[in-house]
């Protein structure tokens, strides 16, 4: 249990992020970049943006999945070492957003990969992105402690998640 606690602590305190634009409009991407800058400075939480998916713990996806990018998205995901998490940022990444019916768009990230946290917005404010990442961290911690679904929900309590009816 001690060891698990340490692992959980280290995982949630040192999330390295890899950013993937699967076909978005740039706005989400610049807001993701903006979380690194002095105003929001996510290095406070140990978050670092890594260029190589091999170093990443969280894949931050922005934009709808276009037909052409699908392959690459999968490849990047498979390059990441486990445990790995995905945060979908922006309405496009959630469901296709305004591009929902475009002929070249498959839809949200969850059409291709399992998404852990959804961050709506077009684009979400950097604060909202941070709030989303914090949620991923809660999930990471719960998973490392192997709390199961029940515990995960309670670990997630205190965030802004609504308990479903």
């Amino acid at each position, binding site marked *: 249990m001690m060891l698990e606690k340490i692992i959980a602590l*280290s995982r949630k305190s*040192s999330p390295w992020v890899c950013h993937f634009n699967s076909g978005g409009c740039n706005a989400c991407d610049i807001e993701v970049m903006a979380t690194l800058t002095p105003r929001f*400075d996510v*290095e406070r939480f*140990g978050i670092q943006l890594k*260029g*190589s998916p091999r170093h990443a713990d969280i894949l931050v996806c922005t934009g709808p999945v276009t037909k052409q990018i699908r392959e690459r998205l999968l490849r990047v995901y498979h390059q990441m*070492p486990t445990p790995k998490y995905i945060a979908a940022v922006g309405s496009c990444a959630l469901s296709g957003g305004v591009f929902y019916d475009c002929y070249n768009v498959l839809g949200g990230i969850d059409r291709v990969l399992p998404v852990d946290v959804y961050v709506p917005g077009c684009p979400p404010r950097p604060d909202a992105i941070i709030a989303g990442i914090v949620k991923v961290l809660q999930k990471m911690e719960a998973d490392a402690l192997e709390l199961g679904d029940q515990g995960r929900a309670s670990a997630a309590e205190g965030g802004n998640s609504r308990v479903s009816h």
Partner: protein
Amino acid sequence: MAIIDDLFKILVFPGFLFVVNLGLFLEWLDRKIYARLQNRVGPPWYQPWLDILKLLSKEDVIPEGASRFMFTWLPVFYLAVTVTASLCIPVGTYAAIYSFPGDLIVVLFLLTLATIILFLLGWYSGSPFGRVGAVRAVTQFLAYEVPLVAALLTQALLADSWSISLVMARTTVGFPRFVVVHLTALAVALISLQGKLLRVPFDAPEAETEIVAGPFTEYTGRRLAFIRLAERTEMAVGVGLVSDLFLPFPARLGVLGFVISAILVTFVLSVLRASVARFRIEDTTVLAWKYILPFSALGMVLAIIVRG
């Protein structure tokens, strides 16, 4: 009892645990100063340790196209070499574990070996970025290694010895007399150390925007943790070496003086990192051979003159 004592020295202080932790502490210091220089908050103090712990608990991936043997063992060798080098560095007045007349040469040799391992790390990782990074690492190595050696040699000449502890003791004594020579050599040493540690402006071998993470691009989990530890140890060794050889505090204030000097040196390196853009690899070479090398040669000539 003697064995336990030796083991303690090697494993705890001033050996393995001490240098590794010093290295991680310096990493935090560096990141924090860097962040503050950029008007941000920066990471909390425990960040480097948790980074390592997290990496240890992650999956290890061996990519296709990488050599399994090399991929597994090189990170370990890398760490082993840098830790061995650290055993020769005296912590202030606290003598090094291995101290002998030519230990400065041995440390330099081990640090060179570390660079060669870095090259192999990249070359056998089966990624084009790794290869470009590896080649760059060696190119750059040719650029800064000579000035670094020259700078240290200047100190050795001044002190008339190749033993780190002797140079340390004598530098302090002779400090006021050779101040010009001394400062020249210090400047050269700091700049080439920055190159040795692959930091901006000399970070072309692992330039993120060009070649992702250079030699380390493909490494994950435990192997990456080893590599990071080795890098931090290398930093501790480099910073420690410069503190011991050039600054007056280690010899006067002992362990405390050593840590103070290490912090000072790190501070200078961080400011340097924050205030410039990266050099192209070609520029690094030109800069080194055109300006830094003559400068360090000048220092050496001066040293011979003052001594003579």
